[in-house]
């Protein structure tokens, strides 16, 4: 709780205010209010289809929303995709890691990591390459730099995806079920890399089903159900003494096995 309070004092880097999203008839996000402080690690949990992925995809504009407003690092996202240039600024400052890695299969590992810094930030190839090697080193795959994504294991690919996002020196990292597509024996290596990132003070919003990881790394856990934030608290509180019946019922289902 104490860490929570420190973060709460800081200016939030993400501020979602009464965000609502509809997919036709379906009300996917209902009045989402969420503030994330700089340096905070927030884990979002919930059943599949609860809207947790949609929530974080709204933050970098991969999903549009219909009402409310989102501010990311001083840039404002407007409903119905009318954000204009602010959107690109946000995407430049916000990194994302996807469930399916989404590496660029036609580019080598190195080119995957250097592309955006060179094309978006305008870095020289030399600078981008140096940064790429440093990041690949950090996630333990510098020796694979010349390979293509298809030649790597899932765990390695996801670590490349992490390095690729970090190469843009983001102020915030979004993780959309980063280990859900991995074989069990590869989950650990990806979580380790994320754990280290959290330790270094990166602001992170993580959607995951890894409850052990959430408990260990999160400053705050947000439980979302049917598009609503039902409850949010420090992991100890949320996991050990959830206040809401819906939280209890969800946790009893996922923690049983």
């Amino acid at each position, binding site marked *: 709780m104490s860490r929570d309070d420190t973060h709460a004092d800081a200016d939030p880097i993400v501020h979602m205010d009464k965000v609502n999203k509809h997919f036709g008839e379906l009300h996917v996000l209902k009045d989402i209010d969420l503030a994330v402080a700089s340096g905070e690690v927030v884990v979002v949990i919930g059943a599949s289809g609860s809207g947790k992925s949609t929530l974080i995809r709204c933050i*970098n*504009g*991969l999903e549009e929303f219909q009402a409310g407003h989102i501010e990311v690092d001083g840039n404002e996202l407007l409903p119905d995709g009318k954000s204009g240039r602010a959107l*690109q600024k946000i*995407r*430049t*400052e*916000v*990194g*994302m890691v*996807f469930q*399916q890695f*989404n*590496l*660029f*299969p*036609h*580019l*080598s590992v190195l080119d995957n990591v250097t*592309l*955006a810094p060179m*094309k*978006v*930030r305008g870095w020289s190839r030399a600078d981008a390459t140096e940064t790429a090697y440093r990041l690949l080193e950090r996630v333990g795959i510098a020796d694979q730099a010349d390979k*293509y*994504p*298809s030649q790597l294991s899932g765990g390695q690919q996801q670590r490349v*995806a992490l390095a*690729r*996002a970090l190469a*843009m020196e983001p102020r915030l990292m979004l993780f959309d079920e980063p280990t859900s597509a991995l074989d069990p024996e590869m989950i650990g290596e990806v979580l380790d890399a994320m754990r280290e990132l959290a330790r270094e003070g990166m602001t992170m919003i993580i959607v995951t089903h890894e409850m052990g990881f959430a408990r260990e790394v999160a400053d705050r856990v947000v439980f979302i159900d049917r598009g609503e934030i039902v409850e949010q608290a420090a992991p100890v509180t949320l996991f050990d003494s959830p206040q809401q019946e819906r939280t209890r019922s969800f946790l009893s289902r996922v923690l049983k096995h």
Partner: protein
Amino acid sequence: MDVTFQFDWEAAFASIPFLLKGIPYTLLISFGGLAIGFLIGILFGLLRISPVIWLRVPAIAYIEIFRGTPVLVQVLFIFYGLPQILGGPINALVAGIAAIAVNSGAYISEIVRGGVQSIERGQREASLSLGLSRVQSFRYIIWPQAFRRMIPPLGNQGIISIKDTSLFSVIGVGELVRQGQVYIATTFNALEVYLMVALLYLAITLSLSFALRLLERKGLVGQ
């Protein structure tokens, strides 16, 4: 009466130098038309998937019209019909190239559309999430992958268009078939000469298939 027919190899070979004069025209019409058709295909293929309806509708109209009418009619229209509007004759070679261009362009538009749409959504999302603009995302991520997938259907279209040029003998352009007809008119060796004509088409199309196979193999790296 003796009905056995003797295939006259000598006559067949003798026709080759004359037939070869048609090859530059066949190649020029095919590849000139295909090059322009490729540019048309990129443009209209992308317009075809534009979210803007008044860009999409003209593209659909163009594709349907030129895919849905015979290339023979198209070339007759261009060569005999358009001069009535333009007030002056059109060179047969130009008419042939134009017909291949607009015809293959319609098919290539659909190839481009299919190629671009076949790239997983995650590729675009990942590139946009890194801050790349839509244009950069297309240029560096979507197009290179789409183009690789387009090579086999483009090869098909190339072969079809090469063979389509054989119809253009009707407008008197001296391509392969026309050369064959002219030659047969004096020697009457239809069997031998048309066989040679067929073999020459086969030589062109097989060379293209082979070249595309090399290109495809080269492009397989990293896929």
